[in-house]
């Protein structure tokens, strides 16, 4: 019963962790905007979230073909798969950071991080209301 209450929270907290990771990734790209040879990285957020919440097979999933084979613990997840961003313009120093795109992703990600925070706050408030009842 209690896990039904916290299921939404678990999902949102996984999303929050992934949002923070993406924020760090974009910060790295912005920090390296002037580094020669740096290749911008990007994260496939939908896939990473599906893997984190157990809705898709993680990359590190092992096939258990005998009784003694171990499985990774539930909730354990591999590091989100990072991909390389495709440069929209070539650069003389082989740097593929597109500042306009990174700034847009950064703003987008911070808004969505805040949205996730509000979702968590909302479900916490709902739960507290349900616990308190109408007595006040």
């Amino acid at each position, binding site marked *: 019963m209690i896990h039904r209450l916290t299921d939404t929270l678990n999902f949102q907290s996984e999303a929050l962790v992934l949002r923070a990771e993406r924020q760090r990734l974009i910060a790295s790209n912005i920090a390296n905007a002037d580094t020669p040879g740096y290749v911008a990285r990007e994260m496939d957020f939908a896939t990473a979230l599906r893997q984190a919440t157990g809705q898709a097979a993680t990359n590190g999933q092992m096939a258990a073909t005998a009784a003694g084979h171990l499985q990774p613990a539930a909730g354990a997840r591999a590091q989100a798969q990072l991909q390389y961003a495709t440069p929209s313009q070539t650069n003389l120093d082989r740097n593929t950071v597109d500042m306009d795109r990174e700034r847009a992703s950064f703003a987008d990600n911070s808004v969505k991080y805040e949205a996730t925070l509000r979702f968590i*706050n909302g479900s916490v408030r709902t739960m507290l209301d349900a616990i308190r009842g109408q007595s006040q």
Partner: protein
Amino acid sequence: MSLFQVFNISGSAVSAQSQRLNTVASNLANADTVAGPDGSAYKARQVVFQTELMGAAGAAGVRVSTISESNAAGRRVHDPKHPGADAEGYVTYSNVNAVEEMVNMISASRSYQNNVEVMNTAKTLLQKTLQLGQN
């Protein structure tokens, strides 16, 4: 918590950019210096950035790996009355290109601003995370 690392990443970038701004300042300050008695004038300095990995995948800061000196020939001006003139009457100035330095300065200051803004956003997000579940 990955958001805390944003401060390390952007902090390293800010310090690298300020070092770049420093070299621009010394280059511009020495733009009109002439060759000393040894015949060699000031050489324009340039920082070289390098990615610095910070533990986790996808966390990459910046550091200044070396400061290289430009080997371009210095500007030579015919001015026999100048105290720094050589036997043929030429004065050798430093090889600083003022236009290049100005462009470098604008680029460095923009990158600096970008990284400061990243840190500000991360700070706001962290503060909101700390207030999670309150009120």
